[in-house]
């Protein structure tokens, strides 16, 4: 997609054009779903959060400033929606004691059903990150799973670059401890 057409869609959406906003939804929906799913770990709830994200984006699209990247702005809304969801629905998910390496191998298998693949992703992330604080999980997801730069993460999370780095360091440290407890290296 050209940057030109995206900015055109955004400008039209800001003037209340629902069709132009539909183009934006179609373009970003899968990316936002992937992000929200990685944070929430549940397909059904992730769909609800994605819907809420785009509704908020539509409501506040007049406040979007073109000096920021549109994807960063959407990520910020998705983060807030996910945070609200997790705050109100404090579900405790118990992940099965499956072999992480086996799950990872399954992920790379393209013949798998998407639903099964999503389930595996949720299980691996859930087992890896269940000891992390919400901030650590957020910066970990943005950095290592979404592949965003630190500058973008600071804009989305409103944390300073130092805080982002320290949270990432602690997240990795915690995850290594989790792996150590699972004694994965012995099974390998």
């Amino acid at each position, binding site marked *: 997609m050209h940057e030109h057409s995206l900015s055109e869609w955004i400008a039209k959406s800001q003037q*209340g054009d*629902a069709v132009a*906003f*539909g183009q934006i*939804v*179609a373009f970003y*929906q*899968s990316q936002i*779903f*992937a992000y929200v*799913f*990685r944070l929430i770990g549940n*397909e059904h709830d*992730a*769909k609800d959060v*994605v*819907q809420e994200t*785009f*509704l908020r984006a*539509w*409501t506040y699209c007049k406040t979007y400033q073109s000096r920021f990247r549109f994807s960063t702005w959407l990520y910020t809304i998705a983060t807030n929606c996910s945070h609200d969801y997790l705050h109100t629905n404090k579900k405790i998910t118990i992940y099965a004691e499956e072999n*992480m*390496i086996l799950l*990872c191998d399954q*992920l*790379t298998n393209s013949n798998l059903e*998407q*639903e099964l*693949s*999503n389930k*595996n*992703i*949720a299980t*691996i*992330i859930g087992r*890896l990150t269940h000891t992390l604080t919400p901030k650590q999980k957020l910066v970990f997801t943005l950095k*290592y*799973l979404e*592949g965003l730069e630190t500058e973008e993460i600071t804009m989305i999370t409103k944390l300073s670059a130092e805080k982002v780095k320290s949270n990432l360091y602690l997240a*990795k440290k915690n*995850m*290594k401890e989790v*792996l*150590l407890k699972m004694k*994965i*290296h012995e099974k*390998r």
Partner: protein
Amino acid sequence: MKNDRILEQILAALQESQPALKEEAAAKLTSSILAGITNKKQLTNANGSLLSIAKSLMAAAAVLLVSMFLYQNAVDHPGNHQSGIVYNSYYKETIRNYGCLPQTNSISVLLDYYRQYKKGKNALTLLREQYNPMAKK
């Protein structure tokens, strides 16, 4: 160190595999988002017209209240409702003083009144009685 390598592998696998919806579910999600937007748009429009109706009603209510207040005022102070004079101390004073002055247009009479006034209070009273029909009553 082995754990580091394993973690890197897991993270790489996670980054490679993008969680996604099936085509049908994705299309359903898109249509429900768009339906939500349309509903929200209609709701906003409805809210806008409701707001303008509410504004008109408030203006009408304000006019009604002011009218009621003026009417009540007129009932409470009959005869004085044409102006706010009765509540104004300056006008009150003027009216009172005007009642004491001789009711005439003649300059000579007024000069005579002034001279008597300068002489003393008794002369003034006399003049009042002489020229002011209200004072006699």
